[in-house]
Every structure is written in structure tokens, then in C-alpha cells.
């Protein structure tokens, strides 16, 4: 499965919705994520991608769109 599809899978699990936001659509502006849901999203990404995301990276800016999440995870790999 491609990274964006895996990110979307985590997002759908966290939101409980079968949504397919655009790669550059703000997940916060669209209301899909808030600060509580972002914490779950980050935990889900850690599990799905086998990475550890430090607290210092807990910024909405880094996880605002699927493209940004993909770039972030690519840099972590």
C-alpha cells in the first residue's frame, strides 16, 4: 500500500469516517482533526509506520495535510 493510502487508513480509523480528503487539504480547517484527534492520529501513524514521533514534533503544522504527513514520515524513515 502506498504511504498516502496508509496515512488515509489511519485518518479514517481516528475520525471514524470514510473520508478521502485531498492530499493538500487542511485536516484542521476541514474539521477532520482537532488537538485531541491529532494525538490519536500521531499514535496511529507511529503504529502503522513503525516510527517514534517525539513530543517536540507535536505541532499541528507538521500534520495539517496528508502531503505534509507523508513528507514528515519520509524524513523520519
Amino acid at each position, binding site marked *: 500500500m502506498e504511504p498516502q493510502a496508509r496515512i488515509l487508513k489511519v485518518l479514517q480509523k481516528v475520525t471514524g469516517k470514510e473520508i478521502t480528503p485531498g492530499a493538500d487539504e487542511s485536516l484542521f480547517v476541514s474539521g477532520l482533526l482537532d*488537538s*485531541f484527534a491529532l494525538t490519536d492520529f*500521531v499514535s496511529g501513524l507511529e503504529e502503522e509506520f513503525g516510527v517514534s514521533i517525539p*513530543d517536540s514534533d*507535536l505541532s499541528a503544522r507538521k500534520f495539517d495535510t496528508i502531503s505534509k504527513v507523508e513528507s514528515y514520515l519520509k524524513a523520519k524513515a
Partner: protein
Amino acid sequence: MAYLRAFGSWLPPRRVTNQEIAPLVDATPEWILEVSGIEERRYASDQDTVASIGLLAARDCLEKAGATAAELGMILVASGSSDRFCPGPASQIAAGLGLASTPALDIPVASAGSLIGLTLAAQLAPTAGRVLVIGAEIMSRRVALNPEGKNTAILFGDGAGAALVDAETGFARIADSCLFTDGTAADILFVRDGHFHMDGPAVIMHASRKMPRAINELLTRNGIAPGEVEAFLLHQANLNLITRVAAAVKAPRERFFTNIARYGNTSSASLLIAAAEWHSGQTAALAGPLVFSAFGAGLNWGALLALPR
């Protein structure tokens, strides 16, 4: 050894409802309740100071303990909203208690200050004897009641709490604690030039990871399962955050005492106000572990474990 002997509190009589706040910050009462779990908070009067309300909580605590101020070996006062930075309210509270030589120290850490105070008191009690920990805040003077200040103005209230930590006697023994500081994110929560600044989403993200981690570390190293804990007493920051922490710790939500609906977030006072209310509602002796946890400016956070005697 160090024991929790008694708690005390004082809340200003003036109730400020969501209905009163909402139009000032361009929000609705329902939205405030939804995002915070807060229905109303208390505001101090113009005559009140952090020291004066801290003194009232201190007296309440000493009265509940059946102790006198002269028995105290030390006073620790947590506040992030003190009227005067240096010296802070500790020396004024000591003076108000009639003490002229008992050491009285300030802990200027919003939200997490009382937890730090309890932890230090537990370590100091073997030599100091009885340590009075106070958290006192007048946060209403540090927030802006306008649309720009919406995200903080809706949360905060005023009040004071106190705890007496005693080297010899009490209803629960302080068994362990852990404190942490991460200054790399200090700019998400601070007071400068008399104004409180908070990046709410960032604070929520950090707190919802750090507090469960601290609680789990404490429970794990003491061989205690979350379900064995009789009560969790947390800094009353946001009801949704407390629910979040309960889920992350995998402990029953009803074990987490809350009073944020009535008092809002009283910063460092909230942990001790919650403890005072929880303790006054107990009809039987403590039968299981008690866990305290807080998160605040610094960032500072941690947890404290107390066990039945």
C-alpha cells in the same frame, strides 16, 4: 516518611457563567461547555489578592487538620498569577498566618505548581516536619475577556487550595512521585507582562501524551494496575483532557474526580481544590492507591502516588 494529612480550599463567591462570558468572547455557552466541560467559574473581587485567597485556603486546611500555623516547618506556595513576582505570595501568606521565621518559598509554575509543591513537601517533610502546600491563582486578571482572548478566557477561574504534608501522621502515605521538565516547548504556555499566553492545541497534545506517561511510569514501577487506583486527582485543565487521560491510562473514567464544571481551570490551585473536595466527600478510610497528576508551564508535569496507611 511523608503523609497527606488534610486539604483545604477557598473559592470566591462570585459565579461567572458561560452565559456571561460567551458574548464577551464571541462564543456561545454551548460551545464553551463542549470544548471544555466548564459551566461556570469563580472570579475574585478587586480586593482579593493571590496571597489573601491563598491565606484563606491555608487556614481552611489547618482547621481541617486540627493543626496550628506554629507547627509548620515550611510553606510552599504555587502560583502563576501572583500580583507581585518577587517576592511572591509565600512570604505574605506566612505573615498572614502569624509566622515570622518559618521558611516560605514560591513555586511560580502555572498549573503544575501544586504537584511540584506536594512532591517537594514529601521530600522535605522528614526534616521540616509539617509542610503546608498552597496553590492560589487569580487567573481572571491574566486573561483577556474579548474575542482575541477567547481560547483562554473561557477556561480560567480563580481560587485556592492547600494540603498539609506531615512527617508523622495522615490518611495516606506519599509513596512515590515523578516530575519532568521540557523547556523546549516553554513558549506554548507562559505568563509575560501580566498576560497569560497559551497555544491551546499544542498544550492539549503535549498534556494528553505526557500525563498518561507519567502516571503509567509511577504505577508500573510500584506494581499497581490502573484499575486498582481508588481515585485519580488531576489538574482540572479541561474535562475532555481528563477523559482523554483516563482512556490512555486505561482506568475507569469515574475514578477521575472532576469539579471543573463548577470552577473552571484554576491553574495550579485546581489540583488541591479538587483534592479538598474529593477528600471532604469521603465517608470511609482510603482503601486503595491515590494518584495525583498535573501538567503546566515549563513545561512541567508529573505524578504522585499515595497509599493507604
